[in-house]
C-alpha cells in the first residue's frame, strides 16, 4: 500500500435522527404525537490505522463501533469530517474503495440461505467483480482454511450459526481485500475457529501488509489479536494506544497483601499516596487490595509506608503480589461511569 495510513478517520461526526409518531417516550414516560430523537453515535473521532496493523475498536453496546466501521466502508455517510481508505476519500471514491475493503458486519444475514457455501461465494464473488478460475481457487482455499470444506455443498439454511459466521468471513475475504473490517467476527465461533480466524488475520497483517479493523466484546480476542486498541465510549475516543501500553497504564497500581488477619482499613487509607484500600473478602486467606498511583516515586513511598504501618500493627505479612492487568480490567475502568482520568 502506497499511503501512510490504510484507514483514516478525520474528525468524524455522526448524529442519527429518528422520528417517532404516537409513542410513549422511554425517557420521561410521556405520550407524544410526534417526537424527534437524536443519537450522537460518533462524536468527532480521529483514528488512523497503518498497513500491517490490527486495530481493535472496543466499547460498550451502542458506543458507535458498528457505525464507525460502516463509515469506513461507505455504508453510512458521516455528517462532517472525512474518511480515507488507502489515501482516497471514501465518499467521492466509494466504488473504487469497495474493491479494497472486505467487510463482515455483525448479526446480519450476509449469505443467501437456499444456496450452498460454494454457490454463495460464487454469487458474492461475481457481485464483487471476482470471476473465473481465480474465484474458484480462492473460494475453495477459503472454505478449506476456515473449516467449511465438508459443508461446501450443504444449503446455508441447514448450517449452524457459527458456520454461517464463518461463511460471512469467507465472503468478505473473497476479494482478497487490502483492508479488512471485522465487526464482532468471533461471535458464535468455537475456540478452534476463533483461533484460526485470529491466526489468519494476524498472518495477513504481518506477512501481506494488510490492515484489519476489528470490533469485539471479547477482551481476550482483542488482547491477543490487536496491535493497537481504541476504546470508544458514547461516540468519543477515550483512549487509543498500542495494546501493551494500554495494559501498562494501570499495571503497577494494584497490589495484593496477604496477611494473617484483616486489619482496620481507615488508617491505611490515610497514608499519603494510597489511592484505595479494599479488604479481600471471600478469599481463603485474609488480606488487602491496595491501589497506588502510577507515578513511581509516589508509589514507592506509599508502599514503604504501608508495610511499615502493617508491621507496627503486628501483622504477619505472608506475601505481596502485583496484580496482572488484563484488558478487561482496563476496559472496565475506562468505560465505567466514574471514568478513570488519564
Amino acid at each position, binding site marked *: 500500500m502506497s499511503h501512510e495510513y490504510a484507514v483514516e478517520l478525520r474528525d468524524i461526526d455522526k448524529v442519527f435522527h429518528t422520528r417517532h409518531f404516537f409513542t410513549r417516550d422511554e425517557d420521561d414516560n410521556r405520550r407524544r404525537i410526534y417526537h424527534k430523537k437524536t443519537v450522537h453515535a460518533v462524536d468527532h473521532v480521529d483514528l488512523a490505522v497503518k498497513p500491517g496493523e490490527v486495530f481493535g475498536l472496543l466499547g460498550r453496546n451502542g458506543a458507535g463501533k458498528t457505525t464507525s466501521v460502516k463509515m469506513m466502508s461507505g455504508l453510512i455517510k458521516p455528517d462532517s469530517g472525512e474518511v480515507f481508505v488507502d489515501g482516497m476519500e471514501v465518499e467521492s471514491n466509494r466504488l473504487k474503495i469497495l474493491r479494497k475493503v472486505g467487510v463482515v458486519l455483525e448479526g446480519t444475514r450476509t449469505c443467501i440461505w437456499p444456496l450452498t457455501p460454494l*454457490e454463495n461465494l460464487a454469487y458474492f464473488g461475481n*457481485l464483487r467483480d471476482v470471476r473465473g478460475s481465480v474465484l474458484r481457487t480462492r473460494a475453495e482455499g477459503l472454505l478449506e482454511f476456515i473449516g467449511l470444506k465438508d459443508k461446501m455443498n450443504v444449503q446455508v439454511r441447514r448450517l449452524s450459526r457459527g458456520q454461517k459466521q464463518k461463511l460471512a468471513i469467507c465472503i468478505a475475504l473473497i476479494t482478497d481485500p487490502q483492508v479488512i473490517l471485522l465487526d464482532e467476527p468471533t461471535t458464535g465461533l468455537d475456540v478452534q475457529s476463533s483461533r484460526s480466524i485470529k491466526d489468519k488475520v494476524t498472518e495477513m497483517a504481518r506477512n501481506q501488509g494488510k490492515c484489519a479493523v476489528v470490533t469485539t466484546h471479547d477482551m481476550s480476542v482483542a488482547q491477543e489479536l490487536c496491535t493497537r486498541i481504541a476504546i470508544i465510549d458514547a461516540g468519543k475516543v477515550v483512549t487509543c494506544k498500542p495494546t501493551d501500553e494500554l495494559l501498562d497504564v494501570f499495571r503497577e497500581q494494584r497490589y495484593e497483601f496477604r496477611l494473617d488477619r484483616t486489619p482496620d482499613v481507615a488508617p491505611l487509607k490515610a497514608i499519603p499516596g494510597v489511592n484505595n484500600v479494599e479488604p479481600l473478602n471471600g478469599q481463603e486467606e485474609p488480606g488487602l487490595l491496595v491501589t497506588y498511583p502510577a507515578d513511581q516515586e509516589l508509589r514507592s513511598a506509599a508502599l514503604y509506608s504501608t508495610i511499615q504501618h502493617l508491621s507496627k500493627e503486628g501483622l504477619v505479612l505472608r506475601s505481596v503480589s502485583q496484580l496482572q492487568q488484563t484488558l478487561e480490567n482496563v476496559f472496565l475502568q475506562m468505560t465505567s461511569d466514574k471514568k478513570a482520568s488519564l
Partner: protein
Amino acid sequence: MGFFLVMKAELVRTFIIMRRYWFSTLMGIFIGYGMLMALIYGFMNSSAEPTDVGEVASEVGTALESRAADNGFAVNATESALGFMLGMFAFGIVGLFTAGLQGMARTGELEQVCLSPHGLVTNFLARSFVASVNSIITWCILLTLISYSVDSQLHLDIVPLVALLFLTYFNLIGFGFMMGGLVLVFKQIGQVAMIIRLAFIGIPLFVSESIYDWDIAANPFLLVVRGILHIVPSADAAICLKMVLVGGSGYSIFAHPSFFWLIVNGFIWTTIGIACFHYLESWSRQKGTLGAY
C-alpha cells in the same frame, strides 16, 4: 462489464433456487393458470352469478366446450388475460423495488449488495432484468396454455414482441427505481407502494386500443384520462402488446402512437427513476437506513 457479471450471478442464483424449490415453481404456474381461468370465466359469465365451487367448475367446463361458437369472446378473454399478466408483471417488477428492497434492508442483504463495487443501480438493473426474464418466460408458458384452453390464436411476431417487452421493462423499472429510492429513505412508503402496485394490475387489464376512439368532443374530461394513461407506466405497453399478440398488427405497431408514447415514457421514467434513486440512495446512507430498518 459489471452489469453482465451481476446478471450472470443473478441468473445462476434464480435458476438454482427454482430448481431446488421446484414444487413452489410448479405451484406458481398452476396458481397463475387457475387465477387466469377464473378471470376468463368471470368475463364470459358476468350475468350469471354462480353460487358454489362445483357449479363454477362445471360451468367453466361447458363454457369451454362451447368456446368455438363465440370467437369474439375468445379474443376478449385472451386480451384480458394478457392484460392481467402484464399487470402481474408490473406488480412483480415494482414489488422487487418496494417489498423486495424492504425485505433486503431488513435482513441485511441490501448492505451486502451495497458493498458491491458495481454500484446499487447496476445491481438492481441486473436483478430486475433477470426477474423480468424469469416472469416473462413463466407468463409465456401460461399464455400458451390459456390460449390453447380458450382456443384463441396468438400472433407471435418475435421482433415486435421482443422490442415491446424491452420497452415495457424500461417503462416499469424507471418507476420501480423511483419507488425503491423512496422506500430506502422513508420506511412508511412501503404501504403506499402496495396500493400503487395494485393499481398496476388494474390499468393493463382495462386499457385497450379503444382509448383512441373515445369521443373527446363529447367529454373533454376523457382527454385528461387519456393523458394520465400516457403518463403512467404500463398503459401504453398493454395497448401495444394486446395489439400485437391478439390483434395481430405485427410490424405496423412501430407506427402506432402508443408505441411512440411507450418509447418516450420509458425513456423519461428510466431517466427520472435512476436519477431519483441515486439521490435517494445517497440520502439513505446519510440517514443510515440501508441496514437498520
